[in-house]
């Protein structure tokens, strides 16, 4: 794809084109495209005044809100590089981001609870506050981002520092264009987005695509309970719902749904985790709304979408600009590989890390097992890589490192397990004389809440091979036998 103009310009052009239309609805505030552009420009001027000339890498550590959108686009207009950081990240992750990705300044909406000791500067006209961590990072110079990079996002890392993905202006714009074209998103759509803007599900379906076509973005706040989602649908009269599979399960199981609430809804978009076919069937028959379960990867952007309403299985066909292949591996497994126009350029803080994940033809090795049938992609499991916890990727090695640092822990192994509902949970096996609460407490203070192991089992020793590798099958048997 040809080089695209800077994202800030693309966004302002969209605002000018749709100036009189409603752009964002958040709680009780409504903002038109014209007002949005004005607020973004004002915020950009404010940030230029507040930020020093060397403060280029700015992390957004905040929950979804209209304020979030304004700060994100203002950073682009102000010539800064926004890093979109999960608002649940704790001290360990933020310190890792600061030290390995060279982010010294954060925009946060929780100044009283910001995990790193920081100097705080209010941003006039915003709930966001500039946080400048007071403890200096290591002397090592962080790597320089590419000049073409427009936005950085994060995926799981193994050492406490989430891996930082650099996306060029062209890649972000391509992802948005491919999504709008491939899914038929139009100016008449009202999109209710339940996913955090930092997550690929929201970033790729909502953050820019909605504005490119002049549609409305409705912000959801709080935990996505069935009553909360129904209330938001009623208020927004949304035509599209963007949510994780969990939300569809809750709606499918809700005891007394108000069907009128769903009368404007035309499409429900799901991604990032496995959607149970029974949930899909129950939701669709109850609400008469199709769930389009698409496939996307943090490193590549959105890959597939089902355009044909007759198909209620699989993850759809390739979006424009996407090439899919199933690669037969030497171990007999079939791996999904993808090449897209919206791929990340590199990992800022893991030199060559992304390049090593590409095959000789530039296809990304996803670590997902799958097949293609009638041009549709089916993902049937994981072959390697991080654990997917309801749409968030977690590398067990990161958790193991934190648990090993707890006083009294001799050894540990963390792996993906299932709870009684069949949901994926992290299971930590710990060797040491301490209690569950000791492990939970330390993990809670150092890690994002969703990374805290749900299941914790204490064993005298962890079975390992002579090379030190955990013998997982044996370990699973042992924990099953442990009360």
């Amino acid at each position, binding site marked *: 794809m040809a080089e695209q103009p800077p994202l800030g310009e693309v966004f302002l052009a969209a605002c000018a084109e749709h100036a009189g239309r409603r752009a964002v609805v958040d709680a009780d505030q409504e903002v038109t495209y014209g007002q949005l552009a004005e607020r973004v420009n004002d915020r950009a001027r404010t940030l230029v005044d507040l930020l020093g000339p060397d403060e280029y890498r700015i992390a957004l550590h905040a929950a979804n809100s209209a304020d979030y959108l304004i700060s994100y686009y203002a950073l682009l207009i102000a010539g800064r590089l926004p890093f979109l950081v999960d608002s649940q990240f704790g001290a360990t992750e933020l310190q890792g981001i600061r030290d390995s990705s060279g982010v010294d300044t954060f925009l946060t909406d929780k100044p009283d609870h910001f995990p790193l000791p920081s100097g705080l500067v209010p941003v006039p006209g915003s709930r966001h506050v500039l946080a400048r961590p007071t403890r200096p990072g290591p002397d090592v110079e962080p790597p320089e981002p590419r000049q073409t990079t427009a936005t950085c996002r994060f995926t799981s890392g193994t050492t406490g520092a989430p891996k930082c993905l650099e996306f060029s202006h062209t890649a972000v714009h391509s992802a948005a264009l491919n999504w709008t074209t491939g899914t038929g998103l139009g100016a008449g759509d009202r999109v209710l987005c339940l996913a955090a803007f930092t997550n690929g599900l929201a970033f790729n379906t909502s953050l820019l695509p909605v504005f490119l076509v002049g549609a409305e973005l409705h912000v959801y706040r*709080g*935990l996505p*309970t069935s009553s909360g989602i129904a209330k938001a649908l009623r208020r927004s009269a949304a035509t599209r719902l963007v949510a994780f599979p969990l939300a569809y399960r809750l709606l499918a*199981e809700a005891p007394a749904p108000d069907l009128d609430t769903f009368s404007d809804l035309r499409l429900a978009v799901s991604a990032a985790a496995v959607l149970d076919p029974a949930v899909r069937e129950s939701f669709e028959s109850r609400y008469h709304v199709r769930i389009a379960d698409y496939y996307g990867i943090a490193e590549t952007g959105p890959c597939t979408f089902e355009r044909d309403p007759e198909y209620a299985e699989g993850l759809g066909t390739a979006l424009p600009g996407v090439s899919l292949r199933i690669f037969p591996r030497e171990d007999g497994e079939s791996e999904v590989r993808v090449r897209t126009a919206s791929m990340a350029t590199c990992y800022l803080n893991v030199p060559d890390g992304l390049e090593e994940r590409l095959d000789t033809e530039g296809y990304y090795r996803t670590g997902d097992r799958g097949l293609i049938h009638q041009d549709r992609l089916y993902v049937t499991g994981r072959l390697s890589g991080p654990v997917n916890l309801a749409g968030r990727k977690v590398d067990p090695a990161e958790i193991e490192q934190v648990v090993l640092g707890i006083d009294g822990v001799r050894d540990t192994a963390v792996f993906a397990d299932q709870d*009684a509902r069949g949901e994926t949970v992290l299971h930590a096996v710990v060797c040491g004389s301490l*209690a*569950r609460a000791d492990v939970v407490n330390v993990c809670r203070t150092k890690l994002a*809440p969703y990374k805290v192991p*749900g299941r914790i089992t204490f064993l005298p020793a962890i079975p390992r091979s002579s090379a030190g590798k955990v013998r997982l099958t044996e370990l699973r048997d042992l924990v099953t036998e442990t009360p």
Partner: protein
Amino acid sequence: MTDEGIDTGLREQIEKLVEVATGRVVTVADLRAADGSLDMAGVNSIGYINLMEALAQRFGAVIDPEADPQHLMSVDSIARFVRAHA
């Protein structure tokens, strides 16, 4: 009744709901070892969502975690909320 005036039966019902909401990953024993604190027992965000659904279905008690997060902190705070609002 306990010294905090919370019915033991209600407390036990809520402990059981927490256990089910977490897919039995956090047990009643884990909760009691953490003095009833949901966070300290290791309840994660999916567990909280499932619990809120269960509280609404069982008791008609709808807790807004944005406005009133303190009601979701412990078994006792949930019990107090249920008693006051159900």
